[in-house]
Structures are given as structure tokens and as C-alpha cells.
């Protein structure tokens, strides 16, 4: 049985024919669309390395069947920078040393982008840490990650204020 999946990935319409419904969104991104920025860590929804935005919401792409995402809009780490300029979350991770080895970083950054869109954490470091608990970092860069998310939150809020003015 052939299954056809239509997705908009990083703004580009993609049509993928699948011969097997077992393909996860993560494997589709990495193996069929060659978008290997999204990482496969535990592949069981525990580490957060595979975090992407689906219709604007952060999820674990390892626990989503690609066929079930038919019609969805996907944003991955490859689609975050605009016109060569880093997204404020990306820039803040560099400024605050929010990583060491970098393996978890795409997931951390996509999770942070999702967190800031959710708008629940504000500038409270405790709420940021709690809201990032689904992303593990074995290098232990958590202090920098928290600083980076807070900084990016401030920058995005400032940008929104400037645009509103």
C-alpha cells in the first residue's frame, strides 16, 4: 500500500510517497528529505533531541507517524534563520554558551522557540527550566541554555514592541 504525505517543511511544499506507514516524522525528515539537523537521540520521546514545530507547536518528532501529520506545516532547525540572519534564539545560544557538543542543540533551540511562542514562562528562570525539562543535555549546559532562552525572550519581546510602535 502506498501512502502519500503532503507537508510544508520550512515553507516548502513537499510530497512524499511512503510504502510503509511505520515511518516517523523524524525519519521522514532525516532519511527522505535529508534534513539531518533534527537529531535522533533516544527515539522514544525521552530526550527531546528530535523536537520540531508542527503547526507551530513543539513536539517529539520520533513519536509522530509521518502519515498522521499529513497536511501539517513543519518547522525544523534548518528553517529558523531568515535571509542568513540567525534567529534570536540561535544567536542567544551562541552568546550564552548554551551548548558544548551540540548534539541536543537543534532540539533545545526548537523547544525554546516553541516555549517562547507558548508565552507561559515569561522572564521567570524557574518556569523556563520547567518548560525545557523535555530536552536533555548530557554535557550539562543547562545554565547557559536557561540564560539563552531568557535573553531570546527579552529580544523577541523588544522586537515585538518595536514593530508595534
Amino acid at each position, binding site marked *: *500500500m502506498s*501512502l502519500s504525505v503532503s507537508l510544508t517543511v520550512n515553507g516548502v511544499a513537499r510530497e512524499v510517497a511512503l510504502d*510503509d*506507514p*511505520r515511518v*516517523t516524522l523524524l525519519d521522514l525528515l532525516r532519511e527522505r528529505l535529508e534534513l539531518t539537523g533534527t537529531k535522533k537521540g533516544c*527515539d*522514544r*520521546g525521552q530526550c*527531546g533531541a528530535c*523536537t520540531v514545530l508542527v503547526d507551530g*507547536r*513543539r*513536539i*517529539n518528532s*520520533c*513519536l*509522530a*507517524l509521518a*502519515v*498522521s501529520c499529513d497536511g501539517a506545516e513543519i518547522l525544523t532547525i534548518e528553517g529558523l534563520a531568515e535571509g542568513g540572519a540567525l534567529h534570536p534564539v540561535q544567536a542567544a545560544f551562541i552568546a550564552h554558551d548554551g551548548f558544548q557538543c551540540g548534539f541536543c542543540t537543534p532540539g533545545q533551540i526548537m*523547544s525554546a522557540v*516553541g*516555549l517562547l511562542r*507558548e508565552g*507561559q514562562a515569561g522572564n*521567570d528562570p*524557574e*518556569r523556563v*527550566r*520547567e*518548560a*525545557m*525539562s*523535555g*530536552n536533555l543535555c548530557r554535557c550539562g549546559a543547562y545554565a547557559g541554555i536557561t540564560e539563552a532562552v531568557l535573553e531570546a525572550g527579552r529580544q523577541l519581546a523588544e522586537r515585538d514592541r518595536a514593530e508595534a510602535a
Partner: protein
Amino acid sequence: MNRFEYVRPATIAEAVAAASEPGAAYLAGGTNLLDLMKGGIARPSRLVDMTRLPGLDAIEPLADGGVRIGALVRNADLAHDPDFARKFPAVAEALLSGASAQLRNAATVGGNLLQRTRCAYFYDVASACNKRDPGAGCDARGGETRLSAVLGWSEHCIATNPSDFCVPLAALDAVVEIAGKAGQREVPLEDFHRLPGNTPERESVLEPGELILAVRLRAEASSFSAHARYLKLRERTSYAFAVASAAAALRIEGGAIAAARLALGGVAAKPWRARAAEAVLEGARPGGAIFRRAAEAALADATPSGDNGFKIELARRVVARALALAAAGTPARVPALPASLFAPVPGGLHA
């Protein structure tokens, strides 16, 4: 993961028909089912994708002041719905104390009710498990039982239900709306999950093909909103299952407890409603001594299922602390660390 047939029905009737076949399973958020399939613990021959079924994704206020929560409402959307969180704060807190933000964005209301136990022996296909393989035996007996039951267990199964959401739902008399081949029916959430007995493989009252449509809370459940908390003891502050948890809701009138609702999590195969404890509380003035008496009543029937006798006293203390937190009043907003013990407690640190 085994091969399976993928179907995406357009109507509830089509879904029920497709899922009535032996070996079929519903797919919603997939956060538990796909994990189980990757581990070879669940091996459905057909997945019935219910995510496109119409009319199941709304949080509907009811005319009588209650609420109807569609089965496809995502955990995060329910917890962050301002009207829902104001009326049912313990439910919102329980939801936000579970899993991670990514999982809460995907996991659904119906799926939360149907999530499987996190018993390590159920998850390990090399271990004997009556739930996974009826009649095989139970390697959890005599094993690592920190997360195992102390109430309602049987010699065939000592697993616990891992849901946080279901604990306040059981306390607040939620009702589950179900569609099946023979039409629709309703089951109180308290009766939705089964105790293991000698058929631990049957975890709920659902018959083959039956589909959860919605969960309903009555207006009466919102009368506790000023004094309603969820408290969850776990191995780490976030993203961990409960060792023991409690949902406590009080209606305090003229300085006395006019009504009390209490349920425990992490201690049994189902969310454990503690009616005897509620009876102890009703009519009393809130305070440490009466909360401790209620906690003792809640765990009166508890027995260790292994090296987990400590959980009984632990659960008593969680109950007493949850009641103290509820009596102190619902915070204006779910705390930064939802349901955590690591938060200031009015009137002292010890329950």
C-alpha cells in the same frame, strides 16, 4: 515495530467499525502507543487514526456551568485554557505536572485515560508480565517495586496507573462519554479503569472498538476551585512519574469543611478515590490533625506488594500535605513547578 495497516476514518461510526477488528488500536497523539510499539510491547495489526474525526477537539462550557472536554483536546491546550484552569485548578496543575511540554502538546485527553502502566517489567519484553502476556506470571513480584501498587493489587499484577490527569478527575466525579457499535454510553471515571484481579490485561471497561468521545465535569466540581491542589512526589522535580500523588479539593464554608474530594495516584492500577477520607474531613475544621486522620483513612487498606511498604507512609504524608495546600487556597496561577513539594508551604514544611 511490527507492520500494521493504517486507516484514517472520516466519521465516528467508520472509526468504531474499523477498530472493532481484532488487533486494531486507535491512534491519537501517539506519545504512548508509538513508544510501546517501538519496544515491541504493543503490536497492533491496524492503527485507526482518529485525529481527523470531527467534533472531538473542543473544550465546551456546558449550560449548567460544567465542561465537556473532547477526546482530542491536547493536554497543554486544556491546562492553559484560562476558563478551565480557573474552574478546575487541580486538573490544570496535574496536567502540567505530567510528562514534558513537547509530550503535553501532542498527548490527548482520551489517550491520557488509556495510557499503559510504566511498570518496568511490563516494558521489558524479556520479563514475565501477565498484562502483556496473560498467564505468563509477574516478574515485578519480588522485583523492584518502588513504582508498584500498595492498594487494589493482586498476585497477578502490581502495576500502577501512571496518569496525573485522572487523579483529580476521579476526585471530581468526571464522566467518560464512550461511543461503540451499540451506540453511546457513559461511565464515571472512577469506574473506567479496572483493578487487575486475575485479568490484568484488561485495564479499562472499554469493549473492542469503543471510542472515548469526551470527558465531562459537572458544575459542582468547580465549587472547589478556591481550595484545590494536586501534589506529586517523584524522583526528580520535572518530567517523572509519580511515586505517590494526591488531588485534594475542599469547599470551606464558615471555617469548616463543607465538602471534600480526595484521590491518590501512583498507588494502584487506577486513580484511587478515597471516600472514607472525605467522610473524615466533612464537617471538620481544617487543620493538621484532621488531615493526618484523613490520610490514615485513605491508606487504611494499603498493603505492600514488595519492598514498597514505605510508599504507604509516604502516600499518607502526600495526602496530608495536599490537604494542607488545598486549605491554604488555590494560587492565582499554577506554580512555576507544578504539583511540586519544592515550593513554600504555608504554616511549615512538615505535613
